[in-house]
């Protein structure tokens, strides 16, 4: 008996005692393995069998069955490594037994698909995962067999290295990595996948970044960039990672967005170099903000490097440009583009809305992109100035007579419409077709007018038209009718060279182009456009929307349309049945905006006597609220800052009452820069109320009111001031006159300044009183505070604020200073509430008095945005002295007011920055807090800005006017 046989027999008996089947499986496997292993290797294998059988017959069985099958894939000495790795998965629990058994069972397939080392790496990952979650390990094992197809061999090691890091640092994301990672990597250039994974590994090893999250972010970012550039960018990030891995991560995260704005890779390098310079001077926080494009400096550099133009950077100029061209009512509306190539969030209202994209990067240089914005504004305002909405039903054009009477006859029912244009459109059964035609014809007319009215824009218009044509869909992929209209659209863009149409039907197109040419006359009107569109509609109706490939013959350029080719199209009935494609008019170029008959202004409503019919109940597109999503995110984030579900409902409810949204920057002290347009502030009038509260407060404090009024009246300056030594005036100053005579006699060249005059002197002070309406002002002043009355319960901080406001108002009325009263609160950066109780230029009346009683505690305290808004109001008000008084009950805090959910230092620094901005503009800020602990943060927040802590809250009504009197003296 050989040594090998002895080894086999020695193990068979014990195995048979555990399970007879095991012994049989062992013998079968051993006989296959024995010739391929030396004695020692076979002995090791037998030991593994014994060990596994003692722990789990199931695992041992799987191992013994798999061993002969994996042998072809392994070196003899690797068998023990494989056995050992599987064995380590078997921890004793039934779940781990299942995992180990699955590993052995699947090993043959894994070895067939993956390199040996990769399988071993995988087993190590499974072992690490099994320490946290055997289910996760099992799911990853299942996914592993698909890696072969999804992850190229050369990337596999790096991928599994990252897998091990995930298993160690964030095991919960391991399944995601195995499930989605390969797909995410597929979007990356083949030569960059491995370096990217290595880079992510390095970044995540050095930082607390979550590897799969970073992989997702970076793959998403790189997916926005052409693959040939991936390698260079990852290489740049790799160099950056040597200096600071976190910054490198931010660089790649924003690379997709940045690359879109920059014209070439060279600019990307310059962008990176600017960041590096920042890193050396200002450190990593500022640089991270820079690469996140979360700072004004980043925007500045991007603008300088980029040919693209962000609307935000030219908003002021473009708004005014739009108004100059189109008049006072023009409003610019920024919106994205939906899947149909049209502007999303199109509003249906009566304003003259111009739709623009958030950024313009169609052309290489900045000036050309700005010109493209201008062309878009000019075109869309042109509809208003060149009479697109001045259509009157039944009127004739200069070139074409009205066909309304004729068309009405062919319709069975009466024609109705909310406007003249809608009434006309209702004459056409295929309304979508007619709307599309009308838009393109009228746009062609408007562009002719544009060239005439703004010759300086004509070159830019031409460039924009050409670019628009380059973006048009391939003609032969469209239905025949769509292709016909697409050709008309290209002609309307003054690019006949882009027309392609079947040679044999060219006569039809030539006829249509002739009709379109009518509106190219400079004196054509909207009535000509409408009738031309109607004629084109008649032609289009005869063209079935069959696949273009069915159109016979070759397609030729439209410039040859003047050559009498072929004939008209065959009648519709001659085409085969059931092959028509669904028809949708091709969307117009974006720069032309939306020519929507539903948005026609009320001035074009049909004359009631003339139409005599009710309005058309045409469905209006629903208006999407762009901000809603952001609000919902904030609410869903669940980071409760005192808000509840009911409050979330209130937020939604109040959307309807908001009168004005403003956006303000916020100071990020770590970045040492502003976050541009970070806060959205909604200004709304405070709720109306009755006079009871105001009157009761005056009654309660009648002594104090009288005293304060008196003190303030003393502050009022004298109405007239006497000016002396004037050459002219109301009175002669006797002393000066005598002196003058004496000088004259003496021949001393007297000055005839002996008149005096009384001039009116006006006090020119404006104050904005800003009240904290945060939820914390709902707290009772003191548990010992006696009940104010049975109805109102104990006095709260907000009650004292309100009483102080009433007294302050009385005092201000006495002195005659301009004053505004505002309250602020909010929830998150997207919903800073600004309640107007009284505007600076508003008179105190019953309405404003009534609002004070309705001031109630609300949500959080995002002071910075509220201060900036009050500052804007003060700046606009003509006064020599401007004061901002902020009354609060605690430090600023709000959801997301900082890097963390609510961060003390960030909020305090932003508030301080807002106050400094006010000071720079000549505003005198003054902070008053009723928080006894206020010194602690006010000292940091105010520094050289005046503040007062009122420890005894109940003294606020007395102190507030006194503080003001000192400040405004």
């Amino acid at each position, binding site marked *: 008996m050989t040594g090998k046989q002895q080894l086999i027999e020695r193990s068979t008996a014990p195995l048979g005692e555990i399970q007879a089947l095991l012994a049989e499986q062992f013998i079968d496997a051993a006989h296959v393995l024995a010739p391929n292993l030396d004695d020692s290797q076979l002995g090791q294998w037998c030991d593994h069998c014994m060990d596994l059988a003692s722990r789990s017959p199931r695992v041992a069985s799987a191992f013994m069955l798999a061993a002969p099958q994996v042998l072809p894939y392994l070196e003899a000495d690797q068998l023990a490594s494989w056995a050992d790795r599987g064995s380590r998965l078997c921890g004793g629990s039934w779940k781990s037994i299942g995992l180990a058994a699955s590993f052995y069972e699947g090993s043959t397939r894994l070895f067939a698909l993956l390199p040996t080392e990769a399988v071993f790496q995988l087993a190590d990952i499974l072992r690490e995962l099994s320490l946290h979650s055997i289910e996760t390990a099992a799911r990853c094992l299942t996914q592993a067999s698909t890696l072969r197809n999804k992850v190229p061999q050369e990337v596999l090691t790096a991928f599994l290295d990252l897998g091990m890091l995930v298993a160690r640092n964030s095991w919960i994301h391991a399944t995601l990595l195995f499930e989605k990672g390969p797909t995410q990597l597929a979007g990356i250039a083949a030569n960059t996948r491995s370096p990217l994974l290595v880079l992510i590994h390095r970044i995540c090893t050095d930082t607390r970044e979550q590897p799969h999250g970073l992989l997702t972010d970076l793959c998403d970012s790189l997916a926005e960039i052409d693959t040939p550039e991936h390698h260079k960018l990852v290489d740049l990030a790799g160099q950056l990672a040597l200096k600071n891995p976190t910054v490198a991560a931010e660089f790649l995260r924003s690379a997709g967005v940045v690359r879109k704005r920059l014209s070439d890779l060279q600019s990307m390098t310059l962008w990176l170099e600017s960041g590096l310079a920042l890193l050396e001077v200002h450190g990593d926080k500022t640089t991270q903000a820079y690469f996140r494009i979360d700072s004004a400096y980043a925007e500045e550099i991007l603008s300088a490097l980029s040919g693209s133009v962000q609307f935000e950077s030219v908003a*002021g100029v*473009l708004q*005014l440009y739009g*108004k*100059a061209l189109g*008049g*006072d009512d023009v409003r610019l509306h920024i919106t994205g583009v939906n899947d149909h190539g049209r502007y999303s969030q199109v509003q249906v209202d009566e304003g003259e809305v111009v739709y623009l994209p958030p950024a313009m990067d169609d052309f290489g240089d900045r000036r050309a992109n700005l010109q493209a914005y201008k062309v878009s504004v000019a075109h869309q305002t042109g509809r208003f100035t060149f009479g697109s909405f001045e259509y009157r039903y039944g009127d004739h054009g200069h070139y074409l007579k009205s066909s309304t009477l004729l068309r009405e006859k062919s319709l069975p029912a009466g024609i109705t419409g909310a406007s003249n244009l809608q009434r006309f459109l209702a004459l056409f059964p295929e309304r979508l077709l007619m709307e599309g035609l009308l838009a393109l014809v009228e746009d062609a007319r408007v562009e002719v007018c544009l060239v005439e009215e703004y010759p*300086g*824009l004509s070159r830019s218009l031409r460039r924009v038209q050409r670019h628009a044509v380059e973006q048009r869909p391939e003609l032969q992929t469209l239905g025949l009718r769509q292709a016909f209209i697409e050709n008309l659209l290209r002609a309307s863009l003054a690019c006949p060279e882009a027309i392609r149409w079947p040679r044999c039907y060219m006569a039809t197109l030539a006829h249509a182009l002739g009709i379109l040419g009518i509106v190219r006359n400079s004196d054509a009107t909207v009535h000509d456009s409408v009738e031309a569109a109607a004629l084109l509609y008649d032609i289009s109706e005869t063209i079935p929307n069959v696949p273009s490939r069915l159109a016979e013959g070759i397609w030729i350029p439209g410039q040859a349309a003047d050559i009498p080719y072929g004939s008209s199209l065959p009648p519709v009935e001659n085409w085969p049945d059931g092959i028509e494609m669904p028809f949708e008019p091709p969307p117009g170029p974006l720069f032309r905006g939306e020519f929507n008959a539903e948005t026609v202004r009320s001035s074009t409503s049909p004359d009631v006597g003339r139409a005599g019919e009710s309005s058309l109940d045409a469905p209006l597109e629903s208006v999407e609220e762009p901000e809603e999503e952001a609000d919902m995110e904030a609410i869903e984030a669940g980071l409760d800052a005192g808000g509840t579900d009911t409050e979330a409902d209130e937020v939604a409810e109040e959307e309807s009452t908001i009168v004005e949204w403003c956006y303000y920057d916020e100071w990020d002290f770590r970045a040492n820069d502003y976050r541009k347009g970070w806060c959205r502030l909604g200004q709304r009038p405070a709720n109306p109320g009755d006079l009871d509260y105001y009157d009761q407060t005056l009654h309660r404090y009648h002594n104090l009111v009288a005293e304060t009024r008196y003190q303030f009246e003393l502050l009022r300056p004298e109405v007239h001031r006497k000016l002396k030594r004037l050459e002219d005036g109301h009175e002669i100053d006797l002393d000066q006159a005598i002196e003058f005579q004496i000088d004259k006699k003496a021949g001393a060249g007297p000055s005839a300044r002996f008149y005096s005059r009384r001039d009116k002197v006006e006090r020119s002070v404006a104050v904005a009183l800003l009240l904290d309406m945060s939820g914390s002002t709902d707290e009772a002043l003191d548990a010992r505070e006696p009940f104010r009355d049975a109805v109102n319960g104990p006095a709260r901080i907000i009650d004292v604020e309100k009483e102080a406001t009433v007294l302050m108002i009385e005092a201000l009325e006495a002195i005659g200073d301009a004053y505004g009263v505002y309250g602020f609160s909010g929830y998150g950066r997207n919903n800073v509430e600004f309640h107007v109780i009284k505007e600076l230029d508003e008179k105190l009346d019953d309405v404003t008095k009534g609002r004070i009683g309705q001031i109630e505690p609300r949500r959080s305290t995002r002071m910075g945005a509220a201060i900036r808004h009050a500052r804007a109001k003060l700046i606009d008000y003509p006064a020599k002295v401007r004061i901002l008084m902020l009354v609060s009950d605690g430090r600023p805090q709000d959801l997301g007011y900082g890097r963390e959910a609510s961060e003390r230092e960030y909020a305090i620094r932003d508030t301080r920055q807002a106050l400094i901005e006010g000071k720079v503009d000549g505003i005198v800020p003054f902070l008053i807090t009723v928080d006894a602990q206020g010194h602690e943060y006010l000292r940091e927040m105010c520094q050289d800005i005046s503040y007062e802590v009122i420890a005894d809250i109940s003294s606020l009504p007395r102190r507030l006017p006194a503080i003001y009197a000192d400040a405004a003296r």
Partner: protein
Amino acid sequence: MQQQFRRMEIEEFRIMEEPYYLPIADEVALFESAYRQHIPVLLKGPTGCGKTRFVEYMSWRLHRHIGNRDEEGVPLITVACHEDLTASDLVGRYLLEGEETRWIDGPITRAVKVGAICYLDEVVEARKDTTVLIHPLADHRRMLPIEKRGELLEAADGFLLVMSFNPGYQSVLKDFKHSTRQRFIALEFYYPSRDQEAEIVQNESGCPAPIARDLAKLAEKVRHLKAHGLSEGVSTRLLVYAGKLVADGITPLRACETAIVWALTDDKEVQGAMHEVVDSIFGE
């Protein structure tokens, strides 16, 4: 050294050559009627829209057509009002001359005496007590009291009081007393239509007609910016300046930039918007 200027007493000033004026509506007929009927006239309108030119034109025209009362025409006495303008500045004052005092007539007294058109330009700039002084002159009495001399002057037949102001300055408008307002008929001036303004600019500046048309078009656009950064729209006068620069060889872009964009505002954003409008019209 040869004298390069002409000196004359203010009541001797007459418009002898026809000033260019393009009637916009029936303002000429209305003014003539008011003159015949001795009704004072208030000219309202934004700065640079032609109020002063209209008065000059009417002064010349009255000389030509109904100036038979005075062979040499109707004198025109213009007073530019300002906030320090006093009653003495208008009526006259005593001056010391040696040991004596001598009375000097103010411009309004001179106009009353010679039967001139007395044009108080931007009258709301003057103090309220000053404008009250003209009340007896501006109603049926046509009398000017000179308190310091204890005299009452009855206006000569050709005398007419004409005032102008710009209602754009709202805060000042509040100071314009109704007792003053309701002694005048008011002619409202606004910027002319595009075609009329082009004609004016071409005539006044001598620039080519297409440039004048484009300047008028530009003015129309820029005037939309009133209350959006501009407190006043661009005046016809500034357009004429731009036209003159062009006629003298300056490029239209540069002429508009200096005569319109920079002249109208210091606000960089508004300047930027106006520059883009100029570029849209005159750019290449």
